[in-house]
């Protein structure tokens, strides 16, 4: 077991729990006693889904984004440390899951969220933190899976095939259009 990224699992677990909690809340509103808990679960479920929807950037390698997550990424990124620190998420989920544990339909979501919060604790313990995808931490926007061409082509077309071309002293930059 090498480099497990716990936060990714915690995120997945939290979002599934939130869906279960939301569904449980909706069921809880249809005739069960203590409807306040059900209403709370619906609200908490929606909140967690929104919070957890944007996946954090992996330490290395490509991260598969959720569909349309870039809009929420900006919102979550704007909140700063509150959303990027996993200790805070651990405490938040731990607190959010408690009230939902007192009604039958929402109890499954609450327990799932409890597990998610524990995994978040493990993630935070391993020093992981939420990083936005697609937003440069310095503020310059750049897409994650696209290499930026910094140098203009040094030679105008037509160009000779690569193996015939005389070798240049500088190593060509990856993605340089002059290579092909």
């Amino acid at each position, binding site marked *: *077991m*090498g*480099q*497990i*990224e716990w936060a*990714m*699992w915690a995120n*997945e*677990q939290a979002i*599934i*729990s939130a869906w*279960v909690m939301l*569904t*449980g809340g909706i*069921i809880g509103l249809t*005739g*069960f*006693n203590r409807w306040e808990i059900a209403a709370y679960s619906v609200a908490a479920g929606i909140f967690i889904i929104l919070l957890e929807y944007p*996946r954090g950037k*992996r330490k290395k*390698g490509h*991260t*598969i984004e959720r569909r349309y997550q870039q809009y929420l990424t900006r919102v979550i990124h704007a909140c700063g440390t509150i959303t990027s620190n996993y200790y805070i998420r651990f405490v938040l989920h731990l607190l959010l899951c408690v009230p939902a544990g*007192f*009604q*039958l*339909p929402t*109890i*499954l979501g609450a*327990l*799932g969220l409890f*597990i998610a919060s524990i995994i978040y604790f493990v993630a935070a313990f391993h020093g992981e933190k939420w990083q936005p995808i697609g937003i440069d931490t310095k503020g310059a926007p750049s897409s994650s899976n696209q290499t930026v061409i910094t140098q203009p082509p040094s030679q105008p077309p037509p160009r000779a095939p*690569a*193996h015939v071309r005389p070798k240049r002293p500088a190593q060509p930059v990856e993605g340089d259009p002059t*290579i*092909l």
Partner: protein
Amino acid sequence: MVRSARNWAANDAPTYFALLLWLAANILVFHRTFTEYMYEPRYYYLHEMLGVGLCVSRASASVLNLNCGLILLPMCRTVLAVIRGSTQCVGRKARRVLDGSRKFHMLCGAAICVAAATHCLGHFYNALNFSEHYNVKYPGVNAAAHPKQDPIQVLLPTVPGLTGVAMVLLLMLIVSTSSMAIRTVNYELFWYTHHLFLILYCLMLLHPMRGILKEQLNLDEHPPGCHMLMDTGGSNDTLNVTSEPEPEPEPYHGLMSYPEPEAEPLPEGSTDEFGRIVTCKGPPVFDTHAVEVWVWLVGPFCLYCAERVYRLVRSNSPAAISGIIEHPDEVVEVQLTKEGFVAKPGQYVVINCPDVSTLEYHPFTLTMCPSSRDPTFSIHLQKMGDWTESLYERLLPDTDGTDESLPVMVHRQYPILYVDGPFGSPSENVFHYDVSLCIAGGIGITPFASVLNHLLNEGTKSSRLRRLYLVWVCKNITSFLWIAQVLCSLQRQAWNENRPDFLNIHLHLTRSRDVQILEREYPFLNSRVHVGRPQWRHIFDEVARYNPR
């Protein structure tokens, strides 16, 4: 139009037919259980109290059972390999269906999630109805201890409630690590949490014990519904839903049928509201209904366990490393021998190296299969993740530095490797067609490497295959050197066997550097290298044009 329909019938129809069978089985099971709980007299009182929630929860439970049994079948890999290998009884079309076994596993998984959600939903309402519609007349059928008991207390302190919650949590863990994003990057996590299914199955067998749903046992003594006659005046509007407060009933004693003090046996010959003669000899007796979870699970589960044990025994003795060849681009070819190891080209093995990790098994396609002449088989291993990196360094320890200045014969200590397999894969089918088109990217060439090696050993006339197209896309030109020797030898052999157009190679290079490498040693391959990604339309057009039906 006709042609595309014919193609569809040949390629996809069997898969869809299998899918349709599965869907039909699910619907049938759901419908059968639903109607059983709806109309069976045994469940009359229960259904009266719980309504449609009973039918939904039970019907989804049987769908759950069916899929929990089926989901294990695609994972019996040795069995699948045997079925796939027996070409006499399994046709080409059936083998194509087997190729989708992993997808079927995922489909069953999705069905389990849906059925589990429905089952939970049904039981939430059942718990609610148990507390709302408490049957004061026959307390034996109740699960609640008293009317208006909190649904959480009705369900949770029982064995089915506790095991049910635990199972849903386990299922959530399994699902959360099975998503594409996690499976591809944290494979170990996915692998380990998937094995929680063993606990899940044990809980599943425990789940119906001391069940809260009760069926009526003495149908002949007490025809369901005859309690109406016991009510004064025979009115049937005061059945069991009581609005006025009831005295606290005595505590309920589990499975024991409840003695009914007030229901006196009716005199013989009483009539119901339709004038039929009803002979009611006593109050209804209830007991936990028999649930046949194990019937569904025992077969597939035993098969799966037997297979795992068989695999454990088979992979018990380590394979001997007979040679290690270093290839460019961080690829190493490991040649192994193992007694009694038989494999067919295209099959794969899983390899465990206790020095690297005790529990991890990693799949590798065989690039050379053992034959009657040579018992050696080989795998190609590329440095990709942490496991392969660690194994790579053990197989090829760094020899620079002090070792270089001392030309002493050092006995190389190879790590112990355990080999489990072989298992079947779709690439076994290459030999069963007249024309085969093999497409590979990078190290994905390995299944076809074993095909090429097999053709080299057995000759090109050994199978039905009369033309083989190979499209191989690589980033670096040095990657082509992995099997360049085999490709050239096979071409020469085909030429000698008077089949010059047997092997058609398209090599595609997506990152062109030092193209000259092949020019010197392998001019045959050099003339077949294209720079850039393949133009699929051109390739498919070419294959179709030169191989008319």
